[in-house]
């Protein structure tokens, strides 16, 4: 029908221009709503024969669908355009810094302490604790260092009174644990602060910390100590780490050894860290002295054990190349911020 074609043409013509969304909707209404132009054509229906009505009705409906599709397309286009404009207005500079949800730095002292703990917990060790102000009895006497024994000269101790002192080694916790274990097997580590009458300088500190280890059972031997420490060194320093024993003396162990770890930096070739030797001294250890076992309720003919003492700062200094022990206690945030990697390779 001519009128219908005209309307379609008319609309197509109007939509060629880029109309704003509101006008588009108005226009659509003008053609498609009840009083719209297309609808008005329906009025002509009554003048037509039944046959004609059928085809006329179809024609009108087709035109309606065509118009609706035309408007739909244009409106969608416009809506998308509008959304885009809105989004563009919200544009940010993606190079601006993020809002901080900062995770704090941990003093490397605690990082290393925790790591040592985790390594030994993984091997089934319990973490024990003891007082920092302790009795002479536990710090010395039960560890085979009687009063006025020359071995006391090995460490200068800070005393509170004749019987009370700031522990000079975490070995004191050994005595506490043994006394409380009623002769049962023991597998513990005890990390903690220790104190000595020392001037503070780059390598000495009146306060420092150790992790003591103690294993007691039937059939514990020096080879067990070596394997245990080697496993520790491999976790702590490098996968291919080896340990070496050298004869030494501590009153509470017999035999006593100084333990060297193969240099994790040069892997034994020799470098400034290991002073060219390929080995780094990291801890003291040994088999628990029979006197210590006896004094603390273990029959040395039945039980044996090993003990070791690791210096926390020493390990941290080696691992991170820290050159001054005082840095741990200064807590300069610039220093702390060097240790922000939470899980290290």
């Amino acid at each position, binding site marked *: 029908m001519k009128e219908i074609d005209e309307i379609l043409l008319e609309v197509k013509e109007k939509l060629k221009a880029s109309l704003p969304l509101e006008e588009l909707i108005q226009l659509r209404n003008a053609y498609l709503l009840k009083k719209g132009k297309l609808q008005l054509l329906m009025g002509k229906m009554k003048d037509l024969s039944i046959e004609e009505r059928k085809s006329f009705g179809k024609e009108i409906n087709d035109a309606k669908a065509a118009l609706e599709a035309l408007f739909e397309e244009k409106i969608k286009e416009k809506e998308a355009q509008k959304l885009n404009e809105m989004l563009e207005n919200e544009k940010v500079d993606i190079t601006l810094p993020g809002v901080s949800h*900062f995770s*704090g730095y941990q*003093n490397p002292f605690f990082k290393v302490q925790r790591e040592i*703990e985790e390594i030994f917990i993984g091997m089934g060790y319990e973490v024990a604790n003891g*007082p920092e102000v302790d009795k002479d009895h536990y710090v010395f006497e039960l560890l085979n260092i009687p009063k006025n024994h020359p071995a006391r000269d090995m460490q200068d101790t800070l005393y509170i009174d004749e019987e009370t002192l700031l522990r000079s080694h975490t070995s004191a916790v050994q005595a506490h644990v043994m006394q409380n274990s009623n002769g049962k097997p023991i597998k513990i580590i005890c990390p903690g602060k220790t104190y000595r009458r020392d*001037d503070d300088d780059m390598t000495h500190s009146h*306060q420092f910390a150790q992790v003591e280890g103690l294993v007691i059972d039937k059939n514990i031997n020096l080879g067990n100590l070596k394997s245990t420490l080697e496993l520790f060194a491999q976790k702590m320093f490098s996968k291919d780490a080896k340990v070496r024993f050298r004869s030494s003396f501590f009153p509470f162990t017999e035999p006593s050894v100084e333990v060297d770890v193969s240099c994790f930096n040069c892997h034994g070739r020799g470098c400034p860290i290991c002073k060219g030797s390929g080995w780094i001294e990291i801890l003291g250890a040994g088999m628990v002295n029979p006197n210590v076992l006896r004094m603390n309720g273990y029959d040395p003919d039945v039980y044996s054990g090993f003990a070791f003492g690791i210096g926390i700062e020493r390990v941290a200094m080696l691992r991170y190349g820290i050159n001054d022990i005082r840095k741990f206690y200064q*807590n*300069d945030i610039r220093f702390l911020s060097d240790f922000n990697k939470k899980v290290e390779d």
Partner: protein
Amino acid sequence: MLVSLNEIKKVVDISDLTAEQIAERLTDAGVEVEDIKVESTATNLVIGQVLSCENHPESDHLHICKVDIGTDVLDIVCGAPNVRKGLKVIVALVGAKLPGGEIKKSVIRGQESNGMLCSLLELGVSESFLTEAQINGIEELKDDAKVGDKEVLKYLNLDDKILNLKVLANRSDCMSLHNVAREIAGLFKKEIKLPEFKDNANFKADFVTGSESENSKCFKARVFKNIKVKESPEWLKIALRREGIRSINNIVDIGNYAMLLTGQPVHMYDLDKLEKNELIVKDDFECEVVALDGKTYKVEKGDLVVTSNNKPACLAGVMGLECVEVNEESKNIVLEVASFNGTRVRKTSLRLGLSSDSSSRFIKGINIENQDYTMLLISNLMAELADAKEISETINYDVQNHEQKVISCNVDFINNLLGTDFSFEEIKDTLEALSFKVNGDKDEFKVTVPSYRIDVEGKADLAEEVIRYNGFDRIIPSLPVMETTTGGRSATDTKIKAIEDYLLNNGLNEIISYTLLNEKDSNSWNYLNKFEPYVILNPLTEDHKYVRRNLLKSMLNTVEYNLAHLNRNFGLFEIGNCETKEKNEIHLAVGLSGVKEGQELYKSIKYDVFDAKGILENILHMFNIADSRVKYDRIEGNEFHPYRSMNAYLDNKLFAVLGEVHPSVKEEFNFNKDACVLMEINLSRLFEAKTRNNKSNEISIYPRISRDYAFVISKDVNYSNIVKEIKKASSLIKGIKLFDLYEGEHIMKGFISIALTVECEKQEGTFTNDEITVIDNKIREIISTKLGAKIRG
């Protein structure tokens, strides 16, 4: 302990070994050689003779010398006052390296000089071993020096290698050259030949020795008459010099030399100065004495004193007394070879601050089977070097136990302890090489311990001998086989770790600080723990004298340090012990300074007391502790801001303090510009509190409804009261949340505008409008009537 290899060579053939080889083997076996010393490192020396010596025309003290060095004649300018024609001298040639530097060809005030004439000082010999003339001038060589000889150090006896041993407390035997020689011989499987001495005693002295103290069980003496006190011969001086000991005279030197060789300290008395012909050890004196160093010392009961006629003659084992000193005029002397209990000597030595080569040997323990040998050694040296003609027999007081130490052992014990597979033969060979005697078989053998190895007491010690001798690479490494246990941390440690993680993940940095404080610091910031502090009896410095009772002071110092270094805007925390006689507590300190990131992008907000309070509340929530169990009140004092700080009580017990630092404190610390908030929590108290474990509760399937209220209220009404009152409106109120606080413009002074959301929830069914209206009206009534506030909008 310095060990001259020349001395070792006298008793063990070590000609096939280098000093380095010996040092390495000793160190591996537990006798650590710290370093190898040489007496002189000088190179390029030759012996010369001064042919002519003329004064330098341009100088009042320089000389121009022509020096014959055998192959050449050199022009050398020399400033020594004693240089003269004919003198045999040490010449350092051009290119020689002396401790002071390299010798170069030079022109001194117009005169060419091709080398230097040297003193021993310039070769590196310590001043203390040289005479005044030797220090001020060049060395004057004896006639036997051969011109042209290039082995100058050898000629001067300065070519010895000296091992510097670090003797650990267990190896006191290594404080004797003979014993070190035994160790070296044992480790290298060599023979040792110690000198033997004939007894040259020729009379019986009218002299008595004895002891009235438990702590001295042996006192042997000999009397030497008509001796001559004089200079020691050169060989003795050199031997002592190598051990770092200065020569005094022949008598003192003999004593020192004998001690160095045998490890047995000895002492000499001037017989004619003794009140009586006796030396008796006593330990019940209280008096003052003047020791050989000229100083006065106070003797207390218990100190061992050697007496004659009940008058002190020696601080036994520590130092002799001036009144009976042997000097140049002495003619007749008494030699003491005794045993003094090490523990007792240590006590006296520590108290008097007086230690000597003798005391350190007694303290570590001596070989009681070596005393007669020492006596003979000295008797022979006395005859040889002091012309002693009358030498008495030994006056012998000895009630020591001379029983030999025998240890019963078996092969399995040693292998089980070491994780090794030594055979009986290996063990036997090892022990015998180290001078032990072994009898028996692998299942049981008896080991006789050599008398000088006082450290060897039991089977474990024997195991140590075996492993240190054969090397630790004999150990077969294997992990311990034990019953499986879970391991892990204690409950307390686990809680601490949880708090640590919470704080770290909220951007606070974990620090560690010193436990020991000075007096002033120790007495500040004590809120949670007011018990007496532990005080160090022997502090090294006043700065580290008191065991801290709080962590706040250290925290404040750390904040100060960082601000002073321009590190700004940070949160810090520390967890540590606060130990007092009454209680050991674990505390947590938090320090916040500057600004934090705000809610909106790039807006910074100053830290204030509510940041600390928020942390405290969150920690409480971590332990399921309801806010209602915590009460707060204001802190009195002048360290915290009096109106922006609080005590916190958990179940009515003080457990935390928090607040902004008082402006006057901030001024004192010079950081008044930056905000500073401190908090300390007694974690031990928190951990003691009853807490319920997590449990799932029924949650309503119906949505909550919420209503907002804004009102202006007097600042005298506490927020906690407001909440308490509003809650009374209905049991269906499940939450009250503050979302705005405002005071200032449009609000009367003394009043504040508060906006909050009230949330209600029902277990059964949704709320009807009526129900909501009832609750809403009730709340409005409470706000306006009970709380006296004016509802806005």
